[in-house]
Every structure is written in C-alpha cells, then in structure tokens.
C-alpha cells in the first residue's frame, strides 16, 4: 500500500478500523475532532457502529456496554473530556473490559486551551479514577507510530482484557505526515467466554459488574488484577534510544516533545556536546529498564515535557538517586523550540 499524507488524528481513526474497531462512542472536543469526523464517515462502511453520545460520561459508559458484549469499542477525547471519563475508566479496568481510549492532549488545568500539551501524564499513568488500577498507555511520536500503536491496541486490549490508552497531543493530532498501514500480524486471542451476550439459556448468564462487597473477595480480585499488571509491566514497556552512546547528558521526553528534543540533540552535536535521548513509547508501564543501561559517560539526566513536570517523577524513580535529574518544560499550549532547549542544556552543563 502506498504512503498517504494524513493528519495524526485521521491516521489514528483509520488505524482503529484496520485494528478491528467495531464501535466508536464519543463527544466532540478540539483538538481531536478529526477522529470522530473520520469514523462517522468510514466506520459504518466497514461494518462498525459510530454513535455520538450526549456527553463524555455517556460515551465512556457506552464503551463499557459495547465491550461487555464482546465488541471492540473505543472512544477518543481531549484532556478535560478525558477527565470526565475517569470514573468509567476505573470501571473498565475493574471489569477487565477490553477497550481503547485516545487522549489528544491540550493545555490545562480546567478547560485550559485547545493548544498542545502533555500535562495529562498523571491522568494517563496514575488515573483520576478510584482504586488500584493501571492502564496500558502508548505514546507515539510520529503519525506512523501512532497508526501502528493503534492498529495493535485492540488486540492487546483483548489479550490482556484491559483498557488501552493512546496518548497523543494537539500537535501530533493536527500535523500531517506520510503514513502507511502494513498488514496487521494475526495474534491468537482468547475466546470472550465472559461476554454478556445471548446464549438461548444454554449456560448460566454472564454478569459484568464491579461491586464486590465482601472484603476477602475484593482483595482476591485486586491481587489477581495486580498479577495481570505485573505481567503487562514485564512484557509491554517500550522505549527508543537516540544517540545515547557516550552521551554526557541523557534527555528523557515522549511524544511531540521527543521530536523537538532530537533536533536539540543534533544541534548540540554540531557544537561537540554529546547528548542523547531516552524516549518512552509506553508511559505505563514506564520503561525504567532504559535507565539501568545509561552510558558510563552520563553525568546528568534532563526530562523535557510540555507540562510543569510530571513524567520527571517516574524518571527520578527509575534513576533512583544515582544521578541528578533536572527538568525543563513549557505549558499552557506553548511548544518549546529546539534552540531554547539547547540554551537550557548549556546552562545546565556550565557551557555558556
């Protein structure tokens, strides 16, 4: 299949169809509107169901309902809309319902702005929902990578019986880049024998609920969920290294910011300053192992985010005091330029 030039949002939408999405429920919000726009047009043609809900709360609970019947359901929204869905996400995780949720992040807190941001790292890795739960969370940095993560997301959701996040942002969503959609490798997936579907009285009815009033039973359920989260953490964490060999400074950035940081690293290299990048491709599980393999030349870590400092917490946990971890960020919808990061690094390294 030849390459197409597509917006990040459109590519995610097409990738959802190619990944086997059967149901989309959502409520409009900028900067993710191209996703429902595309799916409203294309998903029914592919045999799926598109439904614009009356609110984010309705949308996430429709995802719960469709997933409970074995459908491959998704929603997409942006930061404040995702905030409204948090209760539903806790329920999806508790009920172990496979589903995919896209967050095209915008500036916050509150209603904030429609411009790009990465200030939802906590929301995407800690969750605003209640209880002990974790959600597998992918962070693409290019339109192509977003398409690939999205195409794999429904299979992963079914395999682990878990919600899956795709964490994008306003810049990745709005920009156009070449993208191609390779055939999806077939993955053997478990039967959905748990689904609440008609069976003509041939078995006991399946129920899908999250209320467990018996403390002993609820603790057992929690331990079982934790065992699953441990399995996901051991298998699914992903990262990319960029020019980390012999780097005296290792940066950590994800998504859009990682692209900009790569430019900064190239600019520094022209001046003889060796810097590299660890780019988490999964936010949860956070790729802590990347920080076990730092080059011996590394003196300092710098985390760069379009936020006031969130992922830096996980970087500090991963580095565990072995090296100083600094932070640089822009927020409010401002996207840093490579040169300002270079200037900050020179100050940090005392090379002004």
């Amino acid at each position, binding site marked *: 299949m030849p*390459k197409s*030039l597509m917006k990040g949002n459109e590519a995610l939408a097409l990738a959802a169809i190619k990944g086997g999405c059967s149901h989309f429920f959502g409520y409009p919000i*900028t*900067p993710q509107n191209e996703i429902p726009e595309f799916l409203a047009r294309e998903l029914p043609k592919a045999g799926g169901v598109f439904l614009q809900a009356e609110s984010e709360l309705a949308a996430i609970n429709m995802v719960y309902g469709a997933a409970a019947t074995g459908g491959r359901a998704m929603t997409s929204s942006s930061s404040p809309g995702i905030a409204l869905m948090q209760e539903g996400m806790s329920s999806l995780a508790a009920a172990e319902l496979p589903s995919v949720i896209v967050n095209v992040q915008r500036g916050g807190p509150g209603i904030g702005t*429609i*411009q790009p941001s990465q200030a939802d790292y906590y929301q995407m890795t800690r969750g605003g929902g209640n209880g002990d739960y974790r959600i597998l969370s992918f962070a693409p940095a290019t339109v192509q990578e977003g398409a690939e993560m999205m195409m794999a997301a429904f299979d992963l959701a079914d395999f682990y019986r878990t919600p899956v996040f795709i964490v994008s942002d*306003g*810049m990745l969503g*709005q*920009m*156009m*880049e*070449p993208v191609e959609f390779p055939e999806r490798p077939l993955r053997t997936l478990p039967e959905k024998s748990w689904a609440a579907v008609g069976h003509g009285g041939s078995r006991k009815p399946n129920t899908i609920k999250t209320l467990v009033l018996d403390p002993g039973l609820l603790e057992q359920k929690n331990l079982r969920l934790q065992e699953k989260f441990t399995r996901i953490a051991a298998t699914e964490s992903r990262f990319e290294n960029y020019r980390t060999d012999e780097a005296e400074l290792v940066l950590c950035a994800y998504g859009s910011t990682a*692209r*900009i*940081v*790569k*430019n900064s690293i*190239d600019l520094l290299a022209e001046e003889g300053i060796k810097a590299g990048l660890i780019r988490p491709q999964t936010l949860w599980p956070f790729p802590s192992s990347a920080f076990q393999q730092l080059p011996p030349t590394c003196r300092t870590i710098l985390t760069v985010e379009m936020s006031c400092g969130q992922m830096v917490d996980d970087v500090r946990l991963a580095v565990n005091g072995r090296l100083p971890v600094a932070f640089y960020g822009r927020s409010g919808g401002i*996207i840093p*330029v*490579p*040169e300002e990061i270079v200037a900050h690094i020179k100050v940090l390294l005392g090379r002004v």
Partner: protein
Amino acid sequence: MINERILCAGFGGQGVMSIGQLLAYAGMLEDKHVTWLPSYGPEMRGGTAYCSVVVSDKPVGSPIVTGNATCVIVMNLPSLLKFEASVKPGGLLLINSSLIDKPVDRQDIEVYGILANELAVKCGIPRAANMVMLGAYLALAGPVRIESIALAFKKVFGAKAERLLDPNIQALHLGAEAVTGLRQQSIAA
C-alpha cells in the same frame, strides 16, 4: 542536502493551507521526509491562517517553523507584519505584492515581490494566486519538481478538481518566470 522549512501565511480562503499540503505531498512522492502543520485556534473572520511545512532528507524533528524559516510566503499585509522576522538570515521572503505595498526592512534576506493576483487572473483562475506564489518558491528553492506538484494536486483536491489542473500548473509556471527574471537581475547587480 535538503532541509526546507517553509511558512505559508495569508487570510482564510487564499489557499495557504493548500499550497503547504501540495508541497508536503509532492515531497512525500519524491520519498523525502515531510511534515505539514496548520495553525489552529481561535481566529477572527478574515484573520491570518498559516501552515508550517518541512521537506527534508532526514526524519523531521520539530514540525514547527518559527524563527528559522528557509522561506516565508506571505499573501497579505498582516502576514508580512507577523512573519517577516521568521525568515532566517539568508532565507527567502516571497510577498504577494498585489496586496502588499509595504517595503521590507530586513537587509539580510532575499525578498521577492510577485503580482500573484494579476498573474492568477492571466491563467483564468483568480483564486490561483497561491499557486503563483508556490511556483515562485519552487523556482527559487526547488525542493520538489513541478511534476510532483501536479501528481499531488490530484491527490489533495480529488478527481473532480482535475479539470483545474492545467491552469493551476500554468499559474506555477507564471510564478516561476516572475522570480527567475528578478533573481538574474539581483545576481547581475
């Protein structure tokens, strides 16, 4: 090595987003790394619209063209005021002089005024002033071929726009001719 960072700006309806997309699509057809990023956000009617395009031999990091544009194309006066400073030293500033008569202050860049609206009328499609400007850019910086723009035109605008292809390509050529003459003069001087 190609690393073109282009900013196209004008008011809504002048086709600045479209020429950016054509450029990016044509770059993709020539197996280059490309990005296209629109400005989006609250904007009043008649306000400025702009897009950033990167065409490069290497993977594109930041898709945002701000203070480091190799070329800025401005279609109206507010765009010139906003983006004159964005051209990097030695870079190109292409001005639609049909609508802009303000002189440019900067001495460290190459400036070309193009009567884009009049030239577009010559091709029979007054709306193709954007294509005249794109043609001028291709002649001066040439990261992609005009043939690739023609292929991209069909992809970006669809089959029903194909009848408009020839006059649009003519607009590209008129834009190119308008600046190649000017460049020779400036080299001779």
